[in-house]
């Protein structure tokens, strides 16, 4: 009897390993290309970004994000195609007015950034200019677009690496917006 169990051992091992593989390959939250956020739960890094030249909006500093309002911080660039894809969603969020939207223009040229916002609309109250991605690095940004939600005290509550989609908005962002907005 025990010998027969012994021969079943490889099959059982296979089942366990295959189970883990199936879990890892099918669960979208376990995508190995997705880097887990190290920034959630940390206060926002120090920054004092100048405005984008030619854009009629003030720049962005850390103090702006600690003035008691919940804020969505969006890193974008005019050359970034997924930014274009998520832009209508940001416009809709700005329209809704539940939280303030600010932008960081990442590794971009001012004229191109102005043209980008002229074409697609401007959802931001403030836009900081970060031509060398230094503030991006301080936020742990590895590429655009990335989006952070910062609470009223300037703590980072959420980081989305990659473009926002309706699904991400409803499933992950919305609960946090409601918690902070309420």
């Amino acid at each position, binding site marked *: 009897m025990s010998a027969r169990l012994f021969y079943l051992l490889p099959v059982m091992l296979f089942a366990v390993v295959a189970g883990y593989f199936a879990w890892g390959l099918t669960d979208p939250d376990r995508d190995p290309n997705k880097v887990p956020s190290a920034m959630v739960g940390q206060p926002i890094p120090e920054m004092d970004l100048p405005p984008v030249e030619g854009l009629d909006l003030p720049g962005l500093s850390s103090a702006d994000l600690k003035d008691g309002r919940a804020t969505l911080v969006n890193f974008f660039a005019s050359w970034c195609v997924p930014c274009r894809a998520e832009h209508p969603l940001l416009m809709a969020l700005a329209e809704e007015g539940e939280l303030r939207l600010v932008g960081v223009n990442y590794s971009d040229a001012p004229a191109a950034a102005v043209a980008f916002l002229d074409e697609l609309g401007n959802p931001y109250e403030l836009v900081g200019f970060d031509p060398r991605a230094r503030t991006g690095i301080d936020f*742990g940004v590895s590429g655009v677009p990335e989006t952070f939600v910062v609470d009223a005290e300037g703590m980072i509550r959420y980081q989305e690496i990659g473009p926002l989609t309706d699904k991400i908005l409803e499933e992950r962002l919305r609960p946090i917006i409601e918690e902070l907005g309420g």
Partner: protein
Amino acid sequence: MSLRAGLAALCLTLLLAGPLQAVEPSERLDDPVLEERARVLSQNIRCLVCQNESIDSSNADLAKELRVLVRERLVAGDTNDEVYAYLVRRYGDFVLFEPPMKPTTYLLWFGPALLLLVGGIGVGVFFRHQRATAAAPAPLSEAEQTRLARLLESDRPAASEPPERT
């Protein structure tokens, strides 16, 4: 050129080829000691855009900016660990190619040794079991003894029956 000379030339070329690097002359530090430290650090820092390249070998803008940043931190007097910590605080452990030793990574670090140990014990138990069974075969029971005797008896060629041919 003969084949042998060609092969020798190829080997020599491969031997002399340095590791791939993307560090631009303008990024280099004047202090050779600091520059060497920056190179060693850069080789263990992941470029998060290309993910399987170090910032030392990547041409991505972010990698370039991180190389400059690593050098700035070194010039400011950071130790190697402080530079790593600075990046890990922002990008997580993923930014390092060599995962740090901590409770959540013990299995990663010691797992292979553990598997070897378990496998070794398994093999040991198996051989010991085999030797034990081989050394002491169970004595034949009385029924087996008589059966053996009968078989041996019947194996003797009987004079009356000719050997069977097939």
